[in-house]
């Protein structure tokens, strides 16, 4: 009856006007003036709504309220009715302006509280005890464009995520919800004091992140996949954890030579990048590692075996030992030439997995992984639909075993996890837009939300520990 404002205040259908005036007379709502102005009535109704359901204003807290992306946030609701159904909802806007949402159904305990660190969700975007479920289960809101993914471009600003507490078991798409309380959280990729430095020298296109403090710091060279572009967020997080980190772009960037869908830079490019780190006065030249995801894995092996440099450690996520696309100098010969191995699903989404099956890789393209001289961590998502990660990891493991280097090899394998094993508590995209021209193409990454989220959380912890062990001690 009284839909007072779109934002929050809802009027219960069974609450009659007579009842309101009764309550006014009982002086429960002293804030209404005699003439019953609408704003006063709005406030009164809000009060009555609250008073009729709760003894005290519900409180929703999130700690810490300004956190790093990889930090756990503890969300609690208090001063609610006992054994009461509530929905916790997370909402945020991506940099592109899309709305992402997640929600979960809880029941308050006998003290009228909920604690997402220990309570179980009984429905919604996730079920079970998932302290960070509201973040990793975020999905584009109903009606959004297809194939969206959440990958932050500007790492110097946080994601603002609004967490709200709603009455009853409901969902964001349902129109009428009573918001009981809300809290805004900020999720950052950089801690204060981290320095972001754009690198456009020695033909390198990249961004260097330095931790706060004098240094010298151990460092990482950070390589991404064939989608191209320059992704800074993992490096920003490494710097926030005390490691200098250089992300480099090698294709699909306006400052790189050649057309965007070809890799026109080769081995010498990555050598320059490694050299830049070594030469940097705040980097410890003897403590530099390399991390690669997807196509970045091949590049990582090329650096480790052909560049003349000796990285202190290698981390390879969901990649292959070789690629049909690379020529002798490490440049891409042509793109999408192995479409014969592409598999399309019934939506026309493509899985590139078979391209990198060891049997399908040209023998001359396979890197000599047995020649690596440092510890290697191989991370595998067993539901990877983009790369034959498991098969390649088997090959690497065997190659190192034959060379008597098993002690250098660590493998982390995650059932149900897909291709893009990224920093934790970020949503898993099972597929996303791969390219827009000449026509739209969506790539399948694989992975199911809950196991993928668990994989990201565990893998990140292990990655940081691996780096601490081999770069700092």
């Amino acid at each position, binding site marked *: 009856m009284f839909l007072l404002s779109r*934002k*929050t*205040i809802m009027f219960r259908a069974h609450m009659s006007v007579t009842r309101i005036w009764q309550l006014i007379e009982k002086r429960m*709502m*002293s*804030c209404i003036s005699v003439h019953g102005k609408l*704003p*006063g009535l*709005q*406030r009164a109704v*809000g*009060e009555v709504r609250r008073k009729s359901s709760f*003894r*005290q*204003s519900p*409180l*929703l*807290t999130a*700690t*810490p*309220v*300004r*956190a*790093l992306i990889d930090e756990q946030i503890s969300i609690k609701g*208090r*001063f609610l009715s006992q054994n009461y159904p509530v929905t916790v909802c997370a909402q945020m806007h991506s940099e592109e302006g899309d709305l992402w949402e997640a929600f979960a159904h809880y029941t308050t305990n006998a003290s009228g509280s909920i604690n997402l660190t220990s309570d179980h969700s009984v429905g919604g975007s996730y079920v079970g005890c998932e302290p960070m479920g509201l973040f990793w289960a975020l999905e584009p809101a109903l009606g959004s464009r297809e194939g969206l993914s959440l990958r932050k471009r500007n790492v110097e600003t946080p994601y*603002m995520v*609004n967490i*709200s507490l709603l009455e009853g078991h409901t969902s964001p798409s349902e129109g009428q919800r009573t*918001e*009981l*309380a*809300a*809290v*805004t*959280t*900020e999720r*950052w990729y950089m*801690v*204060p*004091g981290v320095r972001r430095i754009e690198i456009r020298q020695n033909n390198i296109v990249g961004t260097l992140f330095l931790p*706060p*403090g*004098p240094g*010298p710091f151990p460092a990482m060279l950070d390589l991404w996949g064939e989608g191209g572009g320059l992704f800074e967020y993992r490096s920003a997080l490494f710097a926030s954890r*005390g490691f200098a980190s250089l992300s480099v772009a090698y294709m699909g960037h306006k400052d790189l030579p050649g057309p965007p869908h070809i890799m026109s830079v080769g081995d010498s490019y990555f050598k320059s990048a490694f050299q830049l780190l070594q030469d940097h006065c705040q980097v*410890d030249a003897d403590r530099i590692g390399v991390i690669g995801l997807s196509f970045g894995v091949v590049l990582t092996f090329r650096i480790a075996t052909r560049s003349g440099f000796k990285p202190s450690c290698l981390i390879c996520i969901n990649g292959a030992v070789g690629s049909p696309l690379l020529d002798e100098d490490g440049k891409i010969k042509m793109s999408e030439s192995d479409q014969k191995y592409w598999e399309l699903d019934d939506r026309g989404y493509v899985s590139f997995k078979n391209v990198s099956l060891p049997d399908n890789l040209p023998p001359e393209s396979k890197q000599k992984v047995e020649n690596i001289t440092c510890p290697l961590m191989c991370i595998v998502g067993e539901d990877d639909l983009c790369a034959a990660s498991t098969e390649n990891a088997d090959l690497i493991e065997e190659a190192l075993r034959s060379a008597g280097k098993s002690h250098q090899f660590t493998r982390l394998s995650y059932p149900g996890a897909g291709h893009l094993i990224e920093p934790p508590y970020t949503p898993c995209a099972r597929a996303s837009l791969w390219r827009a021209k000449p026509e739209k193409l969506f790539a399948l990454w694989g992975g199911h939300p809950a196991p993928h989220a668990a994989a990201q959380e565990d893998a990140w912890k292990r990655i940081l520990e691996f780096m601490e062990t081999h770069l*700092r*001690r």
Partner: protein
Amino acid sequence: MDRKQCCVKLSVQPSRGLMDEKFIVLVQNALPGSQLTIRALHQCEDGHSWEAFGHYTADTTGTINVSEDPSIRGTYSGVEQMGLLWSLRPIPGSKPGLRMRKKNIQTPMEVTISVYQGHQTEGFADLVPLSGVVVERWYMAPGVRRIPVTEGGLTATLFLPSGPGPFPGLLDLWGGGGQLVEYRAALLASHGFASMAIDYLTSKFTMETGKMVDNQYFETAYRVLQQHPQVCGSKIAMIGLSFGTSMTLKMAIYSEVIKLSAAVCISGSHVQPVEGSVEEIMGFFQKNAGKTRFNEKNEAIWRDLLLPIPTDPSLKADVGRLQCPLLLVVGEDDQNWPAQESALDIKEMMARAGNSHLLTVLSYPNAGHLIEPPYTPHARSSTFKTVEIQEKVMCLWGGQTVEHSRAQEDAWKKILVFLRENLYGGRNPTSFSHL
């Protein structure tokens, strides 16, 4: 330089916290048993540098945890989790009489915390630390909205908590120095109170006309707050420090318009000409200016201006008529106002009137006048200019740093509980968020 010591790791959690939140400072990977100095450095808005430091010894695992391990000496000693903040003091060679007060509360206070080899006491600028981090301390939680208020001739700022509301309201008053001081209101909004900081001595009106505001000014502020759609008009409290206490008591007792649910009075007094305007009350203090004393450092002591506490009822706000709970916060070493003597007299007056169940007094030995939000560095004295004097004076506030800092921390916790109890009603929260 020792290779291992190069890898000393320093972390502060959270790296972005609210001003009243605790943090954990952790040093790891140090040589077991090594002597290290942990130092905080802050450059405030007017460009002055402040520092604090403690001397530690790494344990057998090469770790120092500031919340568990003692500082042997420094600007603080013993186990002091937040010592690096509350013991901040201007670096040697700074101008005397400085006081740290943030004007722009939309940006955080940045503190650089570093660890140095050995037990250092000076010359930090010339030393290279082993490691360093930057910590941000915020007055506003994310989602808190800052809204300048000029309605009705007010010079004020409203801070609204994030969320749907409605929220209880708070009027926030500072003292004789005037200006629009926002930081406490911003913090209180971060704790769920719609807080309005009010400039009642140097408002636009006063600056333009040369006249002081009248009682209606405060009533206008109350009305504006009450009528805000996100404020629960029946739950409004007032908090005042120093001269702000005088205004708070005046409004709480005598205003026909202002109906407070609670009042917090910090470092103030009830001594004032009853029914006097702001101007008249100021004049009353001016009249007694001759009672100003100076200590050996030529610092002005103003506590005697209102002493002895008068027996004439027309010179004291009639606290016996108070109808809302009152929390008094008193520093027993307050050299600026006779807060302790006033509190005792208030207690007596309320006992006689039969409303002493409304009174709570927090009295802190060796705390001074400026009882601020926690971890604010203590200023025993600083240069000060009131709106009437117009020239800077070195004012003695009082307080001994360690006890004053503990008082700030304890008082703030209790103020929040008091406000929650009276404005949100119902049970006490068992543990209020991070405090």
